[in-house]
């Protein structure tokens, strides 16, 4: 499967990559986006099977990325890895079609729990 990791922090993209590996999902094809607009462009161009996105990013927020993709008829499996974890944000994410919500700081166990049903 191809996974798009969208986060404006290069270090955090590396940590997501490392944690995916630690959780046993290291064999997937990973691509990265450094802001919200790039995430939309790459979700279209790269046709990933899964998007793991930060919420607070330059250019477009993660929820705007998800909304824009859905408005364009793109139903890629999409979820958030973010430090922000209010109930209103989780509800907004769910309403927009988000499949998961992982709060930073996270562990490999949390990744395993969330991604096992998705990545197998």
């Amino acid at each position: 499967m191809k996974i798009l990791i969208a986060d404006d922090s290069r270090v955090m993209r590396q940590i997501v990559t490392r944690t995916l590996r630690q959780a046993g999902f290291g064999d997937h094809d990973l691509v990265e986006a450094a802001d919200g607009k790039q995430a939309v462009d790459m979700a279209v161009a790269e046709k990933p099977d899964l998007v793991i996105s930060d919420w607070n990013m330059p250019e477009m927020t993660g929820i705007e990325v998800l909304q824009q993709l859905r408005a364009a008829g793109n139903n890629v499996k999409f979820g958030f890895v973010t430090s922000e974890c209010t109930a209103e944000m989780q509800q907004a994410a769910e309403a927009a079609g988000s499949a998961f919500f992982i709060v930073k700081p996270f562990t490999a166990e949390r990744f395993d729990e969330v991604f096992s049903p998705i990545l197998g």
Partner: protein
Amino acid sequence: MSEPVVTEGDLAEMAEQVWVSYLDPEGVNPLVPHGDVKQLSEVHSTVSITGSWHGHLVYASSQNAARKAAAAFLAMEPDEVAQEDISDVLGELANIVGGNVKAMLPAGCFLSLPTVVLAPDTASYYPAAERISGLYGVWDGEPVSISMWQSVKQEASA
């Protein structure tokens, strides 16, 4: 004076999660609080919170602590870490703690992207804001602090 919306104890819990997850996964080198608010820093990062609550979350440390944090985040040796990585990690630390702080505030708050300043936290001023709580300690012998600043104007009108 009433208890701040986010206390030193709350900040300590958030810091512990960050340390366990990224900076000290083996549990051998935790952040040890000492409460010295006059502790000197060399670099800092800030996220601003607006909306139903106004203020700033500031993460500050020595340059060595920032380099060690970047090394831990990246699973590299401290001398392999680039300045760009140090700035990135400083911003991410403020973002992670700020995001968790936001969850404790009234609904309707917005978190800014982080600002990183490679100078002591005393180099930044927060007009019309005062420090309401802070966690001050040492990590592996290096100073680290996390402090909360609240808009004075909002407090006066509350």
